[in-house]
């Protein structure tokens, strides 16, 4: 039975179609994937289904009956529940109170009967094999995976038949991902229908029964999962063939044959012993990409902060830092910029962008005093806008309007804007951190190309990433960080994911050789 069916559904924001003529259906008792690049309209479609946005055209059928969903409460009463990408839990309240909120079992005089609620929850948890019992803990004490399970139990408690999960694995570590899908399969066996919004092809291929692909607000097609493959889905998503390993040109440069470093760090340590960074020394050469690998929290962030803003670490770290032979141990970001340093920060939202400002305003962040953009002491926005228009073409930033708010752009396009900004003063040294985190396939290629081009022009690049595949694809050298130290160094010909992985966990590089 088709439990959900979209017929020519459209949703408009102003003149922009977030969803246009969507038609697809979801069979009852299946896990149905909904995939597409960031900004393809997946979340919008599901928010229409969940009653958050009213639809502007077409109709939605639930259990083959046309239904006009008025609001989320109405959607819940129709058996539709949604787990949002950012959990909707009150952190300081207990799990129990979070789950029963809005559906409290009450005795006389409206007094909440928590015992009844807890018994019922325990029953739900056991019958679906979810193994959860921390009902009276505040949500803030739960791990991310547990919080997600609470959200799912909440939907089950509300007797949802269709569970929509928006990018559920984005926040999970691999073990948790596995557990999540084990649970989802069990729910499916119990007759529930699950709609999984994702842009990770591998998990969709592994766990869903059918998959609907969206691109630019439209449905490209729906496939039975076992009849398709990664390449086909990727092509549907992006609109052309894509490859998953970097295919661009890697020039061999003179500077690599006879290295002469442009950046040196000597004996960098943080002052407090419980903080990371212990006696870090390395050099960076022009024409190379130096990858920085490591499990998050092993000192990479602090290193980047020191390198990009040494003055802010003045009281927190000791060590020498030279660029082109000059000491910059206490330099400000502006001084570094004048010495030819470009930066793509770790977290584009919190460290890189002014979300409620347009591209022009974002583009001059950090270069607001660049003489190219100043005339008669004031910021020359015409000059900036002209430059942004060039960069939009160069980096294929979408939507291609300088007046678009950064917050309204997709992650990939935000990242392209950050790359364009970092490269604008033509830096000779580039720090790039997590350039493709949460970015869709199409944009990844573009960003990797840009990084490689800089290297091929003889620029010195440091690439911080948590994606080992990315580091191995692009880097000439990799430094592995563990516990604040450089645990190992690998040159490109030594790259081996198994070896690098072991050193990331604290193992010895040499040990790998002996095995």
């Amino acid at each position, binding site marked *: 039975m088709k439990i959900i069916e979209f017929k020519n559904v459209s949703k408009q*924001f102003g003149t922009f179609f977030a969803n246009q003529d969507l038609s697809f259906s979801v069979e009852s008792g299946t896990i149905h994937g909904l995939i597409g690049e960031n900004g393809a309209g997946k979340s919008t479609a599901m928010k229409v289904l969940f009653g958050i*946005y009213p639809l502007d055209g077409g109709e939605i059928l639930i259990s083959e009956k046309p239904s006009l969903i008025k609001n989320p409460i109405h959607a819940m009463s129709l058996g539709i529940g949604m787990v949002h990408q950012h959990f909707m839990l009150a952190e300081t309240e207990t799990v129990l109170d979070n789950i029963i909120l809005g559906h409290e079992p009450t005795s006389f005089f409206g007094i909440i009967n928590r015992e009844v609620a807890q018994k019922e929850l325990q029953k739900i948890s056991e019958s679906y094999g979810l193994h959860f019992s921390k009902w009276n803990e505040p949500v803030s004490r739960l791990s991310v995976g547990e919080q997600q399970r609470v959200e799912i139990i909440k939907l089950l408690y509300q007797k949802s038949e269709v569970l929509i999960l928006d990018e559920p694995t984005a926040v999970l570590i691999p073990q948790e991902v596995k557990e999540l899908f084990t649970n989802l399969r069990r729910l499916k066996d119990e007759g529930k229908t699950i709609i999984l919004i994702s842009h990770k092809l591998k998990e969709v291929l592994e766990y869903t029964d059918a998959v609907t692909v969206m691109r630019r607000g439209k449905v490209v097609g729906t496939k039975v999962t076992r009849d398709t493959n990664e390449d086909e889905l990727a092509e549907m998503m992006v609109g052309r063939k894509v490859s998953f390993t970097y295919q661009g040109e890697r020039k061999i440069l003179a500077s690599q044959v006879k290295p002469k470093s442009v950046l040196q760090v000597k004996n960098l340590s943080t002052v407090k012993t419980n903080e990371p960074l212990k006696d870090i020394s390395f050099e960076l050469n022009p024409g190379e990409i130096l990858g920085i690998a490591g499990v998050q929290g092993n000192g990479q962030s602090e290193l980047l902060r020191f390198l*990009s*803003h040494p003055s*802010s670490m003045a009281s927190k770290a000791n060590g020498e830092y030279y660029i082109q032979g000059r000491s910059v141990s206490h330099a*400000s*970001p*502006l001084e570094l*910029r004048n010495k030819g340093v470009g*930066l793509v*920060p770790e977290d584009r939202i*919190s*460290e*890189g*962008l*002014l*979300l*409620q*400002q*347009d591209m022009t*305003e974002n583009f*001059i*962040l*950090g270069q*607001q*005093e660049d003489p190219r953009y*100043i005339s008669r*002491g*004031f*910021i020359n*926005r015409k000059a900036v806008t002209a430059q942004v228009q060039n960069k939009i073409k160069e980096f294929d930033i979408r939507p291609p*309007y*300088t*007046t*678009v708010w950064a917050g309204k752009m997709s992650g990939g396009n935000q990242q392209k804007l950050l790359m364009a900004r970092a490269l604008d003063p033509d830096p000779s040294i580039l720090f790039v951190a997590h350039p493709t985190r949460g970015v869709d396939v199409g944009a990844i290629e573009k960003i990797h190309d840009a990084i490689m081009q800089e290297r091929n022009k003889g620029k010195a690049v440091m690439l911080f990433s948590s994606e080992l595949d990315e580091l191995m694809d692009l880097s000439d050298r990799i430094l592995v960080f563990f516990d604040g130290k450089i645990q190992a160094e690998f040159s490109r010909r030594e790259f081996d994911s198994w070896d690098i992985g072991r050193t990331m966990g604290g193992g010895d590089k040499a040990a790998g050789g002996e095995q």
Partner: protein
Amino acid sequence: MKAITMNASMRALVKSILGAMLGLFLGLMICWFTGESPIKILKILFQSAFGSGYDFGMTLFYTAPLLLTGLAVAIPFKSGLFNIGAEGQLTMGALAASAVAVVAPNVQSPVLAIALAVVFAFVGGGIWGAIPGFLKAKRGSHEVITTIMLNFIAAGVSAYFTLYVLKDPNSAQAETLLLPSVYHLKAFECFNGAPMGPLIFWLLALVVFLYFWMWHSVWGYELKAVGENEKAAGVYGISKQKIWMSSMFLAGGVAGLVGIIEVLGNSHRFKIGFSADYGFVGIAVALVARGNILGIIPSALLFGILQKGAGSLDLETDKVTRDLSYIIQGLIILGVAAEGLWTRKRK
């Protein structure tokens, strides 16, 4: 594409006007319930604001301080600070302006005298604004708390100076010495006694100048960046400490210029309690202007009209009192604030 932002800022303005209209409408409905015709109330407000040269002059006299306090709230707001302290800042600015008489009683040139008073008022208010800016930057003290506290301290300091240092011994009131006539500002003849003169054009010019300054200067950009995302601004080397201190100094200084309107333009001395809560109404002015610097002009005028009209409502009707004006002011603020609710719902 350009049309998108034009529309966005235009739409914000239109929304704000709609919100204000809604508030005004509700206020008029209230007087309808009390038995006064809303048309009559509107007529009274209009007459009171523009009925004669004197009335218009008085309306401008009430509007002028609100231009300044509106700026004093709107400017730090762009850097993420909520300045509740304009009242204290304008008190200190006015006190400082009145102190020029003691510091430089024998200035001959009116231009020099007024320039001196402007510097005093600006620096007096500016220091009072810079203190919370400094505390926020260096110690992380919340500016809402510190500015409120400094309002009280300003009241105390000004009372001390008024009663014990600058006191006019001939007066039974809490007021300072009369300033020499070289410090007095001229009022327009056509205002027929209302204490407002060419100063209003200077103040309007100041608003326009600050509008351009905020938008085109590097400082204005950095201020906006800090307000929008202080972490990102920090990563790119913009010091939020410097921005906070300078924006609060500027805000305090601008609020301090209220002292010029009052001390040089009106009573020619500092009087305890001269302010019609300009510092607090300034918050409403900035809110209704939605942080748009130029929007402060119509917004301040609106609140100036209502302040001027408060007494007239009392005078011209049997049932309505000055409180209706405050109810309308409150409803306008609510209308503008609530506008976010109903427009979001429509989406």
